[in-house]
């Protein structure tokens, strides 16, 4: 299998991680899924191998153990061509307001840990002179809302991190950074929520758009569904005195 490209998905037990890895595998890319829940990642890897016929392996990784991230990157048998980070946790906003430990976990999971990890990959990719970094952030990071502001604040931080990283790497022009902002996606994370059908997409859609933005038609920032760009532009344009009274 030499000569084929490879993708590493951080958060490989998630639905978006699974769908994304499968999309690349269908084009012949070798897949590695990294996750804390190895059993769930293995289930996804088996699915990808069976459907695509390409190699799919798993790696144990708990991104919150930030002291171990450098060792994880150094220990990879080969550096992937593309890394996709879909790590994220919505968390329970109400509980987080009175549970600082939970609030901390939400912020670390969505911002701190992914940022520290992707910086390490950025450096490794720079040293090699190629690579794509895909960070899956969220439209929730575009404006703070009452219903999920720990999650949203962390995603906002992650979006800014990706923006800055892209800015740094663009000068050399060897390593690309893609920011993905999904809106409503039907996944395990949102299974308990009622989502507005016209704005809700399946994980396959996110996977397809990531693959396009990475491989087919390079883009810096993508919204999935695309119409969410318009929705967020309007929401971000609302003056704060108006926005603060709204429940959206």
């Amino acid at each position: 299998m030499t000569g084929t490209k490879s993708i590493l998905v951080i958060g490989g037990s998630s639905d978006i991680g699974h769908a994304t890895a499968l999309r690349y595998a269908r084009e012949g890319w070798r897949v590695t899924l990294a996750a804390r829940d190895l059993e769930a990642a293995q289930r996804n890897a088996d699915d990808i191998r069976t459907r695509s016929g390409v190699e799919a392996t798993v790696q144990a990784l708990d991104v919150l153990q930030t002291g171990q991230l450098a060792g994880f990157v150094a220990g990879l048998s080969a550096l992937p061509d593309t890394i996709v980070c879909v790590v994220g946790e919505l968390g329970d906003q109400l509980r987080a307001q009175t549970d600082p430990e939970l609030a901390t976990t939400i912020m670390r999971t969505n911002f701190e840990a992914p940022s520290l990890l992707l910086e390490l990959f950025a450096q490794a990719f720079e040293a090699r002179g190629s690579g794509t970094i895909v960070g899956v952030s969220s439209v929730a990071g575009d404006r703070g809302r009452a219903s999920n502001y720990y999650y949203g604040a962390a995603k906002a931080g992650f979006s800014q991190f990706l923006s800055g990283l892209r800015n740094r790497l663009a000068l050399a022009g060897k390593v690309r950074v893609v920011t993905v902002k999904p809106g409503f996606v039907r996944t395990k994370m949102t299974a308990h929520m009622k989502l507005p059908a016209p704005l809700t997409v399946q994980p396959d859609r996110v996977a397809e758009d990531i693959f396009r933005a990475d491989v087919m038609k390079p883009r810096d920032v993508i919204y999935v569904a695309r119409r969410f760009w318009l929705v967020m532009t309007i929401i971000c344009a609302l003056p704060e005195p108006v926005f603060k009274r709204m429940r959206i």
Partner: protein
Amino acid sequence: MSNSGVGACGLSGWGNYPRVSTELLAPQTPAGARDHLLARSGVVARGAGRAYGDAAIGTQSTISSRGLNRMRSFDAATAQLTVEAGVTIADILAAFEPRGFFLKVVPGTKFVTVGGAIAADVHGKNHHRDGGFANIVVSFRLALPGGEIVTCSRSENAALFAATLGGMGLTGMILEATLRLLPIETAWLRQDTRVAGNLDAAIDQLESSESTTYSVAWIDCLARGAALGRSLVYLAEHATRRDKDMLGPDLAPFPGVRTSRLSVPELFPGWLLNRASMRAFNELYFRRGAAHQGKVRLVHWDPYFFPLDAIADWNRIYGRRGFVQYQCVIPQDRARRTLADILDRVSRRGDASFLAVLKLLGDASGLISFPLRGYTLTMDFPVTETLFAFLDQLDALVVDAGGRLYLAKDARQSRATFESGYPGLAALRDIRQQTGANTRLSSHLSARLGI
């Protein structure tokens, strides 16, 4: 997060009739599904919701298998594929047709799950030769109501295996299944069309084509009198490499899925379905078909096996009140007279689907599998005030001829009709008693029919 509930909701089958309230559970892993089963009663599994009536709606709770959508493994040497129960036939064909494999038995839509296909022992256009879906099942893992997970095959837990094939989900919840795929030289079908002027001619044609792999007759339900049962009979074989090189040298041997572009809007205007428009459609349909008579041609596997899949949500054309798909099978020796009687009544009533499907079936596999050696006839009827009394009359003809109705389509037959058609019922009840399924697993269908 291996489990999640969606909560109480109104559910119906593909026919949009009946619509009933149930707790819908959406586990994301096989273990999660088993946990739900263990904790509930009045429960049944549901796949893609393509059973037409009330078969996949639990009397209290319904466990969706849609989250069990992972493939497990494939062994190219034995062509054995293991998948979770919520994987669909469309998923399998999308992944394996390009690699030269097909499924030996497929129903009329590819949007059914493997679990559903086993539970209904679905059949295709080759049932007379190759049997039902049960025949391609090597083994499966079944969660019993007590929480135990057992592997069933022809050699292991064989009685439970036979009861689950066609058992309408009433023995447990299928979590995973191993199927044997069919190696193919090309994914094209070599199709031959014959015109049959009436029902007798259609049956003669199907009878004389028993050695053909795929055969099916499309009946013009609007034809009457001497032309009653006028049909186009489609015969087909998998095209070999040589067939394809002769008939379509420029075509790719494995052309992939043909994606659908059409969809029926939510509020389909019912007036489009009137007798005049149907008559015009049927006339066109038959002239086009007749023009193909005697010409062998290559047909893409997707429209060949799944013609209605190209029109997303076609069930909406019958509007909010829904429809009933009536599918009966009549033993071979009684078929001609009984089917003529049914078709005559249907054509005089005038509101059936304008096309009906006639097909020769072979022997059954499971205890309450639908097929038996004879002819099966399928028609759609929009739900109206007078429909059920009319269908009761058809049932009487079916019962009198020793036939039965397909449970995966049924929404309204009586217990008496059901019991007279399914002699394997007692054995199924015994097994349900042994596993405790009788007090725990129940769908609206099983409650209605006293299974």
